[in-house]
């Protein structure tokens, strides 16, 4: 779905707050892809990403009258989703026997792990997901917000409540780490060569 202009979004929010179901649906569809992708990259689990995205939308739409139009709607939505994700991660973490920071998923039970090694694209996708999980929570989130969602550093700093310099440090370390991990990953290298 095409990105909404600020005025379009403001109008949708106003109408949704007034009880217009169609506008609320449009608002959801405008943001669900980016939110789901963010949550998927953060959690590594589609089921968790879907549940949290749904709950975040429910909370936002139930409290639209509290929305401050001076801020970006997406920032508000992502902030709520982030809190839900953090809460969920605390519940889910113990179930996985991993000492990796932020690694939720157990390598053996990844729901999307391909069984056919010929599928190089899917393999690379899994490889990327595994690599992301080796980053710290902050590195991963900042990397996703900056490179995937194109958020400016200043917005990320506000979203994560940390100085811009700290955001940049996490970003640089995360990028380097991602490159190192993916560089070590033979499967990724092979798929890179093929592509």
């Amino acid at each position: 779905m095409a990105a909404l202009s600020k005025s379009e979004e403001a109008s949708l929010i106003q109408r949704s707050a007034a009880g217009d179901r169609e506008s609320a649906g449009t608002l959801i569809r405008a943001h669900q892809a980016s939110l789901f992708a963010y949550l998927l990259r953060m959690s590594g689990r589609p089921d968790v990403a879907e549940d949290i995205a749904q709950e975040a939308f429910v909370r936002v739409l139930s409290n639209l009258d509290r929305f401050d139009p001076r801020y970006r709607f997406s920032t508000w939505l992502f902030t709520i989703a982030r809190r839900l994700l953090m809460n969920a991660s605390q519940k889910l973490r113990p179930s996985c026997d991993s000492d990796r920071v932020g690694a939720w998923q157990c390598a053996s039970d990844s729901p999307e792990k391909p069984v056919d090694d010929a599928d190089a694209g899917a393999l690379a996708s899994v490889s990327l997901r595994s690599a992301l999980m080796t980053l710290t929570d902050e590195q991963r989130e900042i990397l996703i917000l900056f490179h995937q969602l194109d958020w400016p550093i200043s917005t990320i700093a506000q979203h994560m409540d940390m100085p811009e310099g700290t955001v940049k440090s996490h970003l640089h370390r995360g990028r380097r780490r991602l490159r190192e991990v993916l560089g070590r990953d033979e499967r990724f290298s092979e798929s890179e060569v093929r592509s």
Partner: protein
Amino acid sequence: MLLHHEAGPASGGSQREGRIARDVVNRYFDGEMTRAEREAFLLSLQRDPETAQEVVRIRAALARLDEPVFTPDLSERVLAKVHSRRRFLSLGQRRIVTAGRVAAACAVLMAVGAIALLKRENPGISLRPQPAPVSSVVSNGQADLAGALRQITETVVAVAEPPRASRSTDDLLTISIEHMPSDRPVLNWEVEAYTDSGVMWVSVSAGEWRRLRPEMSSRALPIGGAVPAQTWGSAGRSDGLVVDDGLASRLGASFAPRALERTLPPATPVRVP
């Protein structure tokens, strides 16, 4: 110049000696370079193959982040859930709901305030509902009632008829007396009573009228009958007294204790200083 190369230490042991500074690479990926700087940076990569390879790998890794992700359509599920929690209402309906909530909150606050004020003004008042008093008394037998009534009435005066020359049903009233004997819970009785010149007479049993102890007058609440304000209690007060005309008319001419077999509504004590 922004595209400076790193100089290694004098020993020449640095692995990045002569290579493009890492800060420059970061500025490139952070999108902080101007177009001219970016072009210069890309040209400089030709002289630094290691950094060039690193840049290629990072770009490849970051490009993976942009790969489309299959996203389920959440809109219908979300809207259904929102609807179940908080129905989509029109602006007018929402205002009505909001106004109703505000009114309800105000009512609760006012009630709490009123109770607090009432308790401050009347420290002895009890807001707890009383147990079904008459029925418990009745279960103990009418003899108990008469005995209890005798405890709260003056023993020096016992007459067969109230000391009044002429009786009129207009002067009769039914009172509820709250009494707290040490050995039983709060009791309320509904008995017939009669006031004369500030003295309250209570019908203890058929043909026996006794004078209510002055301290008990403050616990007597008329719940029926015609009560001339000037004759109520020793102080002649009528504040807060409820006179039910319907009950007064039903009292009729009989002097026998009545209404003992039905449950009284919770009585509200009246404080008479």
